[in-house]
C-alpha cells in the first residue's frame, strides 16, 4: 500500500490532479451544499489525523470533539474571502472526487487516522508545490480553528487573555 501510494504521487499524480482541476472548472459552479459536503468529507477524514494527540481518547468525547473541530473549521472557511473559498472548494472537491481519492489512495470515509497521516505526510514534503499547498491549507485551517477555541487552551497551559 505504501509503495503504491508513493508511486501514485508522481508526475502522473500531478497530471491527474491538473486534469481534474480543469474538469471541475469546466463542470461549472457546484451548489453550496455539494461544496460543503465535499469539504466535510475530507475534513472528517483529516481531523483525526491532524489532531492525534489532542483529541480526547474516550469514544463519546472523541466523537464530539471531532464534530466541534469540523464545525469550527467550516466556520473559519466561511470567514475567508470569496477567491480563497473558491480555491478551497476546488481542493476539497478534488480530494473528495474519484480521481482525487485514487490519487490519495484513500477513501476519506473509511480510512484510519494512520492512513490519512501517511497521505498528509507525503503531501507535506512533496516536491510538487500543489500538494504542499493543499496540505498546508488543511493544516492551517484545522489547527488554527482548534486553538481558537478556549476549550483547547488548558492543554497548552495558556490562561487566556488577561481579565480586565
Amino acid at each position, binding site marked *: 500500500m505504501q509503495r503504491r501510494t508513493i508511486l501514485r504521487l508522481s508526475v502522473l499524480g500531478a497530471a491527474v490532479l491538473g486534469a481534474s482541476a480543469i474538469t471541475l472548472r469546466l463542470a461549472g459552479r457546484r451548489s453550496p451544499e455539494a461544496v460543503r459536503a465535499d469539504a466535510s468529507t475530507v475534513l472528517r477524514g483529516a481531523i483525526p*489525523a*491532524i*489532531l*492525534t*494527540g*489532542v483529541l480526547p481518547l474516550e469514544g463519546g468525547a472523541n466523537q464530539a470533539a471531532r464534530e466541534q473541530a469540523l464545525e469550527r473549521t467550516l466556520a*473559519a472557511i466561511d*470567514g*475567508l*474571502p*470569496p*477567491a*480563497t473559498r473558491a480555491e478551497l472548494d476546488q481542493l476539497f472537491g478534488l480530494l473528495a472526487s474519484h480521481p482525487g481519492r485514487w490519487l490519495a489512495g484513500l477513501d476519506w470515509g473509511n480510512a484510519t487516522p494512520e492512513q490519512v*497521516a501517511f497521505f*498528509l505526510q507525503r503531501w*507535506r*514534503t512533496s516536491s510538487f*508545490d500543489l500538494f*504542499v*499547498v493543499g496540505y*498546508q*491549507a488543511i*493544516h*492551517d485551517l484545522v*489547527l*488554527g480553528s*482548534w*486553538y*481558537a*477555541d478556549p476549550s*483547547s*487552551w488548558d*492543554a*497548552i*497551559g*495558556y490562561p487566556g*487573555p*488577561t*481579565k*480586565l
Partner: protein
Amino acid sequence: MTERLASIADPVADGLARGWKVIDGAALDHAQMVECDVAVIGTGAGGGVTAELLTRAGLAVVLVEEGPLKSSRDFKMREADAYPTLYWESAARKTKDKAINILQGRSVGGSTTVNWTSSFRTPPATLAFWRQQFGLVDYTAEVLDPHFAQAEARFHIQPWSTPPNTNNDLLKKGATALGIPVASMRRNVQGCWNLGYCGMGCPTNAKQSMLVTTIPAALDRGARLYTRTRALRFEFAGNRVARLICVALAQDGMTATPTTVSIRARHYVVAGGAINSPAMLLRSEAPDPYRRLGLRTFLHPTVISAALFESRVDGYEGAPQSVYSDHFLERDPIDGPLGFKLEVPPLHPVLFASTLYGFGPVHADLMRQFTRTHVQIALLRDGFHGDSRGGSVGLGSDGMPVLDYPLTPVVWDGVRRALLAMAEIQFAAGAKAVYPLHEQAEGYATVAAARAAIAQLSLRPLLTRVVSAHVMGGCGMAADERRGVVDGHGRHFQIDNLSVFDGSIFPTSIGANPQLSIYGIVGKLAGELAAQLSGGAAPVLA
C-alpha cells in the same frame, strides 16, 4: 482592574455620539453621489495622517475604508474575533504561490489598529540608497527629521522603559552572550497596560493608532467616513481623475453589492497600503507608460525560529516587541547579501499553532510546550541587492489583488544565515532545543546539531515558513517617470490630481518596521498638498 477599564474613554464611541459623519456601506440601500475637496482611500498610517492634515487646512475630506469601524469596546483580545474582523483575509493573506503569509490590517486605522507598536525612523542608509538610485534628493535626515519629530510627538512615540517580557529578554540575553548588540524599541503608546494583545486591537486605547488619533481629529473637523466600502476604480478625463467609483459591501464585509458611492473631488489620495493601492490603480487602468505599477512590492520576508526553555516564557504576555538587533543589517553593504533585523513576535495560540510545522503527536507535543517557547523572527531587508526586486501586484479574475513574490536565491541565502543566527542566539540564551520553522526540520538539542541541519535544509517555497507583516512598494517614488509611479511628492506622474500617500510609495523596503516611516514621510507630503489646495501654510500634526 474593572474600574480602570470602565474609566477608559472610547474616542470612537464618543465621536459617534457627537454626530460624526460615518456611513456604513453595508447599511446603504441606494446609490450615493458625494462631492468634496479631497477623497482619501484608506484610513491606515497614510490615510490617517493625510486626513488630519487636510482637515486642519480647512479642506472637505471624504474617507473610504474597505474594513469595518471597530473600537476598544469591540477588542476582546481573542484571535477568533480579531483575525476575521481586523485583517485582510482573516490574517492569512497569501502570495500567489501561497509561500508567504501576510499580516495586513483591514479596519478603520488599517494596520496601525493591529500592529505591535514598534517605531523606527527611516534608517539613513535606506534614504541614501533612495537618493542615489531613485534621484530622491530631498530624502535626507535633515529634511525629514522635523516630520518624524512631529509624528513622534503626535503619536507618543517614546522609549519603552518597562522591562521587556521574557520572550524579548531572551533575545537580549542570547545576543549579549555572543557579543551581538541589541537595543530597546520605541513604541507609540500612552499609558500602556503591558497586556500583550496589540495585534488584536488595543482594548485600553493606549496604542496611539490612527483609530484614536488622526481619524477622530479629521472626523471632528467634519470629514465624512465611508466604512465597508470598496474603492473600485477611478474614471479619468484626460490627465485628471474625474470621479471615484466605490461599491458598498454586503453584511459579510467582503462581497460587493450593486450599490455604488460615486465621489467627485478636486484631488484624490490613494492610501490603501501596499498591495491594495497598486491594485486599485490597476483596476482603474491608470496610465503606466513605463510598466512600473505594482512592481517592486516588498515584504521584509520573515523567517522564524522557535526555542524551548526550561522555565516559563509566556510569550503572549507583555509588550510584544521591545528588544531588537540590527547587527545583521549593518554587517554588509546595504546592496550586498540580504541583511536582517532580529525581533521577537508575540505568541498566541492560533497564530502559533497554524505557523508551527507538522501535525498529530509532533505538533501536539510542541503545543504542550507553548508557555515555555520563545520565538525569534528575522526580517530580511529586500529591494537593495540587484537580484532582490520584490514582487509584483496583479489582479485576480475577481479584480482583487494577487501578489506574485518569487523567493529567489538571494533571499534563500539570507534565510539560511538568519535561521543559523537565531539558533545560535537561542542556544546562547539557554534553549534546551531549537526548532527552525521548516517542514523538514525538527527540534535540535545542541548548537552543533542545529548548525549541521540548517546547512542542509532544502530552502524552497512552502517548505520554509515565510511570513510578512510589512508591505511596502508597488507605487514607487522616483525623480522621473521611467523609474517610478509617483514623484518625490507622492504625485502621480501621469495624472494631475492624484497622489499616493502610503507605504506603497517606498522604492525599497525600509529595513525597519515601517509605521513611523509612513507617518513622517506622508506627514511631509500631505502637508505640502494641503498647503497647495488651501492656499495657506502647511498644517502640522498636533
